[in-house]
């Protein structure tokens, strides 16, 4: 297989005159990039390069064949130019150097990049009790705290590593929540995913720390196809954090990740996301990331719980529905979301709660804020199966509009086929309250700060679900994002 190194000479020029985006920098590391295009050979080469077991290659090829028969969906409330899937390079990795023994051996440039993003891989992080598995350009470079987790039997590693070391776990669970043909982008991901995170929590274990991964798109014009699989065994608990920022580029970048969560009896997974990919040029919308993600959790065991919390503040297009399949009895699904759009951003996001077991409960709190000319849609499905006795759902989705050219939509789907269900849904859309702003301004708070205050209050219910560090980050992010939108 032929590979080439991408040229980075012009990138710094492109970036020099764009300083609005704080994290818009590019690390100059020779990338190992496949030529653009997708066919069976590319998939075979990808699989061979990663030394994958045979079942993985079969899985990929099956997904690829399925993908070829599928049509790109068009029902979402977003508009974007057609994606040329042959114009994407499906593998990019920092060239494998010799195996790293300690952090000192990690490329200093890489470390600097993480520093700018606020992730430090050094010992201080250990004291702050967060294990960071930094995914840089789809390939994990360093994992800290592994030992400490290993002592409890917790596996937290990159997906490729897991494929080599725990293939039987992956073979058993991969694709059980999001089948390869689930949707267009999930099929594509199943065929070409490069790396991601793998977490396994053994029975009766409470993870001693919050597991965190920072994703970063780095090589220009490289689609990111992450795959995350989290398995939480009986009576265990884990909280997982995911955060992303992306450097500034002019060609749209496709990000089609798949996240699968599985909880066995009485297990609990809490999955939190703060997403701040580059959202494109404020005026023209050029260059933003397409965030087409399939996230789904399955509460397999009785009494288990999956909780999604997301703060979506970036990407040109966000299109994702973190979902819960409540299969076991007495299972609980939760979804807390704040989606902020400004500039020309588009978001079509929400959740699906599929009630199958008895006494299943789900709650959905969704807050959408749209500013400038952006479009923000909530789309959610609550489906109660015939045998889901005493299912209970509460949904609240509120939208706030800032500016008269933005749009806010809600598309809830509620399907019930069972007489013991109790279901409530409420939604409201309104402008930011002039009275509240007046009250604050009267007390000497500037208009901009007043708006930030009101919006943070509007999102409070969701923010308080986030782990502390994320909560602070999320509030800062909203303030930063709204800076130029209101005035």
């Amino acid at each position, binding site marked *: 297989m032929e590979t080439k190194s991408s040229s980075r000479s012009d990138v710094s020029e492109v970036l020099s005159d764009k300083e609005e985006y704080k994290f818009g920098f590019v690390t100059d590391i020779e990338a190992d990039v496949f030529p653009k295009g997708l066919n069976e050979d590319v998939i075979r080469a990808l699989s061979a390069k990663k030394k994958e077991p045979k079942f993985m290659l079969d899985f990929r090829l099956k997904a690829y064949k399925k993908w070829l028969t599928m049509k790109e969906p068009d*029902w979402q409330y977003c508009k974007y130019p057609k994606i040329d899937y042959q114009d994407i390079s499906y593998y990019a990795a920092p060239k494998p150097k010799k195996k790293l023994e300690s952090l000192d051996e990690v490329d200093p440039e890489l470390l600097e990049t993480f520093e700018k993003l606020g992730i430090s891989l050094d010992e201080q992080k250990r004291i702050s009790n967060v294990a960071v598995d930094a995914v840089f350009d789809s390939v994990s470079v360093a994992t800290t705290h592994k030992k400490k987790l290993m002592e409890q039997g917790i596996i937290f590693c990159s997906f490729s590593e897991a494929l080599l070391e725990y293939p039987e776990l992956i073979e058993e669970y991969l694709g059980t929540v999001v089948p390869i043909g689930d949707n267009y982008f999930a099929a594509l991901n199943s065929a070409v995913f490069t790396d991601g995170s793998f977490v396994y929590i053994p029975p009766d274990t409470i993870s001693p720390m919050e597991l965190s991964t920072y994703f970063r798109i780095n090589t220009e014009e490289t689609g990111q196809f992450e795959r995350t699989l989290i398995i939480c065994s009986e009576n265990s608990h884990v909280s997982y954090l995911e955060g992303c920022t992306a450097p500034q580029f002019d060609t749209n970048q496709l990000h089609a990740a798949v996240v699968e969560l599985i909880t066995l009896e009485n297990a609990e997974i809490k999955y939190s996301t703060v997403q701040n990919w580059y959202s494109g040029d404020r005026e023209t919308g050029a260059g933003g990331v397409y965030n087409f993600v399939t996230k789904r959790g399955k509460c397999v065991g009785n009494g288990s719980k999956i909780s999604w919390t997301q703060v979506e503040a970036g990407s040109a297009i966000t299109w994702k529905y973190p979902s819960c399949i409540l299969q076991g009895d007495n299972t609980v699904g939760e979804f807390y979301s704040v989606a902020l759009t400004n500039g020309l951003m588009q978001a079509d996001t929400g959740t699906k709660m599929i009630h199958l077991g008895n006494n299943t409960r789900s709650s959905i709190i969704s807050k959408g804020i749209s500013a400038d000319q952006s479009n923000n849609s909530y789309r959610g499905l609550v489906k*109660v199966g*015939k045998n889901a006795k005493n299912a209970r759902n509460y949904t609240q989705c509120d*939208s706030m*509009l*800032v*500016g*008269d*050219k*933005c*749009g*806010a*939509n*809600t*598309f*809830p*789907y*509620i*399907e*019930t*086929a*069972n*007489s*013991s*269900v*109790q*279901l*409530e*849904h*409420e*939604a*409201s*859309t*309104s*402008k930011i309250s002039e009275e509240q702003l007046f009250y604050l301004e009267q007390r000497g708070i500037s208009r901009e700060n007043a708006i930030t205050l009101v919006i943070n209050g509007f999102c409070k219910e969701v923010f308080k679900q986030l782990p502390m560090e994320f909560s602070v980050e999320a509030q800062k992010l909203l303030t930063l994002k709204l800076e130029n939108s209101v005035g």
Partner: protein
Amino acid sequence: MSSLTAETGLTPEAELLESHKKFMEDKSSSNFSSLNKIGAQQFEKLGYPNSKHEMFTFVNTKSVATGFVSAKGSEVNKGQIAEFVYSGCERSLVVLVDGQYRENLSDLSDLDNGVKLVSGEEALADSKIREYLESSVQDENDTFAAINAAFCQDGLFLDIPAKVVMQSTIQILAISSGANGENESSYPRVLVRVGDLAEAKIIVRYAGLKGNYFVNSVQDFLIGNGAGLGLVQVETDQKEARNFSKTRLILNRDSRFSGANVSYGSALTRCHLEARLKATGSEFRFNSVGVLEKKEQVHHYMRVYHEAAQCSSDMHFKNIVNDQSRSSVDGTVIVEQDAQLTNSDQLINNLLLSDEAHADSKPNLIINADDVKCTHGNTVGQIDEEQLFYLKARGLSEAIAKTLLTKSFAASIVETIEFPSVRKNVEETLLKKLEANDG
């Protein structure tokens, strides 16, 4: 992909276009011919829907795919329709049989001064009306409304001139005779113009004499500046019948619409209502109640367009579903960018009484203006155990207590119906149906 129909082996599209060709050949040229042609063209554009179409997610369109045989319009006498006439409307009654206006069955002696009723054929001679109808068909988004345009041969045009405040209530009675056997369709078409500052009260009632007919109707209501319209649509079809209707409302400046829909339950009922709030100050109110049992289905598809500032809309649906029945409400409020100061509410309450019943809802909001207040809500639930306990503790039997609670669930909508005779009839029928449930 369309499925083939069992009898002919053709796709529904092909079958329909084939029978349209025959229809056009058989009939003599009339004012309706060009409308028929546009309707067929629009149908070709839209295609025959299946459940993958967002508009028909919950509706099984296969069951009406064979019903393109136009009803011939058989003889019906006054005695046969007497039971469908509301008291007080006997002398302001307009009767359509299988989509065709029947002068001999209608009675217009009580109509207010100036209120004019003409047949569709005559009305189409007026270029203004013709233009409106043709352009509405060209922009049609509902396949079945396009099919109506393709096949309708007659209709009704009701003109309420400016400043006329009607004392009488007009009842439009659409009778399906079901005389010519299975699967016949009728295509009633009604156009009502309420002039500036006029006030009108209209009841539209669907009823059938026998059989599993398919009635596919389209109604247009043009409400002038400052005018008001009170409308009740009542579907009292035969149990095997299928009833699809499209109601289009155009609301002008400061106009008011207050509507109600009552479904008595039939094999398949689908109401598509499209309201356009064109100018400032217009007001739209809509309530709907359905009581379903056995395999009955009622589907509502609502689209309310706020196109101007300072308009308000309010919708409230209540469905009681029992046995294997199904109800769905797909309501969307669209607020255009200029429609500032919009106020909009939407509430859907479902009372689910059986494990085999379905209640689906899609209360959507599409908002492109910022200074608005829009809400929607949806609930699905059962009879409250505590309320039931309260009543039983006071000596009521379970059956009576349940009847009382289900009836009171529907009562809040029934009470809003402006016409006493309709209300009375609804109360009596609902009462019967809910009591039977408790057996």
